[in-house]
């Protein structure tokens, strides 16, 4: 397996969508390719960091104001 082959299957590996045989092949490649290991680990961290950090905060007062506006228009039949 080349690094290009590995990269093509990177998402499937991250999303746990590879067959057991393919997983073994990918692991074997990882065992001898430090670069692909870094790419895999840092891509996983990239996803995790975006998942765990709220980068567009909706403050409570704004949330309440928007919520009230939506519901009042719905009650009027929009």
């Amino acid at each position: 397996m080349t690094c290009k082959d590995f990269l093509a299957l990177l998402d499937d590996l991250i999303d746990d969508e590879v067959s057991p045989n393919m997983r073994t092949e990918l692991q074997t490649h990882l065992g001898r390719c430090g670069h692909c290991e870094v790419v895999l680990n840092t891509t996983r961290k990239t996803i995790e960091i975006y998942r765990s950090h709220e980068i567009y905060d909706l403050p409570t007062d704004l949330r309440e104001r928007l919520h009230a506006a939506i519901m009042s228009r719905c009650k009027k039949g929009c």
Partner: protein
Amino acid sequence: MPTIQSIAGQLEPHPDVALVARVRDGDVSAYDTLVRKYERQLFRIAQHITQNREDAEDVMQDAFLKAYEKLEQFQGNSKFYTWLVRIAVNESLMRLRKRRTGRMVSIDEDIETDEGSVPRDLADWAPDPEQNYGQAELAEILRKTIQGLPPGFRIVFVLRDVEGLSTEETAETLGLSVPAVKSRLLRARLQLRERLSRYFHKKKGLMETGIVK
């Protein structure tokens, strides 16, 4: 092949189904519950696409109102949330196009870019890269980095990886094929990884790339 969980999931109706039915019967308080449940997500998605706070506020309101008006059209083939997100994405794109008159804003054209597809920055990250930055500083880095992605990549990444839609739901929501979503997702992940590496890799790596002089 369906897993045991997915089969069980099909048997047990999603809690939104009952709420939607109550709204259809005229119970506005059930819609209040649905709005509360999803308003944060919708605001976030709208802000990611429009990159403008006022637009995101408008999109969030308009999307919930439109969904309320069109609830009769909701078939129930997809989840209520996915249907709602589709409305919010369309509203967001309309706003974005209005702001960028004359500039093409499209999520269905394939973007020709090789950035990130051949990883260049191969230095590992510090064990807890977030620790080196304050909350506000980190949020700014994450915002700036994701804003630099082409809209078609950004939206796929946000729906699939941040908001947790499946690949199929993302494809359905955006009117893209599953292979197109997969291809964009890989490139979005790799581009973000490459760009974040500038901030998060170990000090040695920073010296090597010349970012820290």
